[in-house]
């Protein structure tokens, strides 16, 4: 009974950010669902994993990141051996009502997908989880300097890609 309530607490506290992170990395809702379920099943089966963990969120992000990386690598080898033309990707962003915002989100989703995975993860955690570089470093098992430089490189690429749209929207505002 205590395990059940513990899993419910973890889900309610962390499922949304983990979902957003996983969806942003995998771009596939079914894969995200599987990975998320695997994480919570693992936690239910091995509750001792969290004992002694100071930052639950960072720990769960690390679990999610490792799971996503494994999946992306597996997908890479699978796609090399199998032709996969009909791979539909899901945007990690909510649908927008404003047409300009809609176009911006589509472009942003596409630009994010083109980032190397390590920059992609850091950019997501910094922009949408609002983690500090120290927290990102702890979650991804890298140094804060590495986290900061990955973020800077990633952001530069996004800006180069989205500059025309951003400028246009700035003028309209």
């Amino acid at each position, binding site marked *: 009974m205590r*395990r*059940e309530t513990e*899993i*419910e607490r973890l*889900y309610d506290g962390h*499922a*949304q950010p983990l*979902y*957003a992170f996983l*969806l*942003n990395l995998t771009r596939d809702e079914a894969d995200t*669902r599987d990975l*998320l*379920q695997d994480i*919570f*099943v*693992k*936690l*239910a*089966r*091995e*509750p001792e994993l969290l004992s002694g963990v100071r930052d639950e969120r960072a720990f769960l992000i690390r679990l999610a990141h490792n799971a996503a990386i494994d999946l992306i690598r597996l997908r890479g080898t699978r796609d090399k051996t199998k032709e996969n033309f009909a791979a539909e990707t*899901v*945007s*990690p*962003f*909510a649908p927008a009502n404003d047409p300009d*915002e809609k176009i*911006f*989100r589509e472009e*942003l989703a596409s630009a994010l997908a083109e980032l190397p995975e390590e920059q992609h993860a850091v950019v997501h955690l910094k*922009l*949408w989880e*609002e983690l500090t570089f120290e927290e990102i470093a702890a979650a991804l098992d890298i140094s804060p300097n590495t986290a900061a430089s990955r973020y800077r490189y990633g*952001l530069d690429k*996004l*800006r180069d890609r*989205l500059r025309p749209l*951003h400028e246009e*929207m*700035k003028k309209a505002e």
Partner: protein
Amino acid sequence: MMNEEMEQFERRLSRQSLRRIPAEWRAEILREGRRAAVAGIGDAGTASLPILNWRMALANFFWPHPKAWAGLAAVWILIFAVDFSVRDKSPVVAEKAVPPSPEVIVELKQQQQMLAELIGANQAREAGLPRFLPQPRSERVEILMT
């Protein structure tokens, strides 16, 4: 100037709201979690006393004389081997059996034909008879009285 522009860009990016997790996933994932938790407890319970005692008892029973048990197993294997080799011969015997002669086949066919005719004639006779319909007992008494 450059920094300010970059900050504006960052702010625009972070303003983009992310997709929400489908609400129905909660129940499904938690159900799987509960199942895993129960299985986890079950796994931990495998080291519990009854199964462990049973295994130990079995080991204690078999271990003292392993050669004797191995000899017994060998005897059983030999018995099975002999049994299978005997069974293997029966289809060979059947294959070697002489097929019936054409005269016997003709005789059998004639008998079958005769039987079919007899059954057919019997059925035709039965078709000609009025069918017996059971009546209530009171009606039968009235018929006898008249």
